[in-house]
């Protein structure tokens, strides 16, 4: 349990992913659309997709570190 808490406490560095996700989503959205509205819409969906993907990987890695 301590290892599990320690792994969660060490997630502070995950905050460094936030500006990267925002930047990547906005640029990706801007290469798909020309108007600000659709760009922001696409960027939001891309950010959710990236966040979800990261969350799944995070849970898998945490489960592995807990079991092993």
């Amino acid at each position, binding site marked *: 349990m301590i290892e599990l808490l320690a792994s969660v406490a060490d997630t502070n*560095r995950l905050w*460094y992913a936030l*500006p*990267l996700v*925002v*930047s*990547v989503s*906005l*640029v*990706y959205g*801007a*290469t*798909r*659309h*020309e*108007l*600000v509205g*659709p*760009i922001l819409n696409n960027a939001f969906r891309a950010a959710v997709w990236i966040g979800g993907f990261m969350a799944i990987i995070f849970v898998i890695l945490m489960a592995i570190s807990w079991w092993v």
Partner: protein
Amino acid sequence: MPTEDGAPANDEMIEVDLRNPAVAAVWAWVCPGAGHIYQRRYAKGILFMVCILGTWFFGLSLGNGHVVYASWAKDDHRWQYFCQLGVGTPALPAIVQSQRAKKGQEPLFGGWMAPPKNVVNYESRDDELSQWHLKYHSFFELGTLYTMIAGLLNVLAIYDAYAGPMVVTSEEKPDKPPPDDQDDS
């Protein structure tokens, strides 16, 4: 269809004036967003400039200017620089620093973007690259990642400046019904 006030309802209906796409692509490489500003696509130009340069300089600051350098020395093949080079002019000082290092001259700007000295593939206190890793810990890798992604994002921006947005227009949809043939009869 345009809305009642004449504005286009979505960006599929916008015709983008790319001016000279090759010139715009070169500008987009020289400075992120500049190609779009040349094409008078100001909003996107500013968006690209802020996002890409913001990512670039944040990454650079994480590693105190050491995460971007050009080196193809025996024990230090800095392949990451090829990704970082996508950002254009902001990555070029690394080439100047690399050339100075090859000539045995002292680096400029206090070693900013200069290749590390005495890189070896075994433990050594003289190995400057190892000292950077020791000093900045994971921020060295994080800064490298940020600057690489900034360079790769600018490749997308360059493509957008050259060819316009990758919107799937109604003309490209395969299941579009043919034009009114029955009217010909």
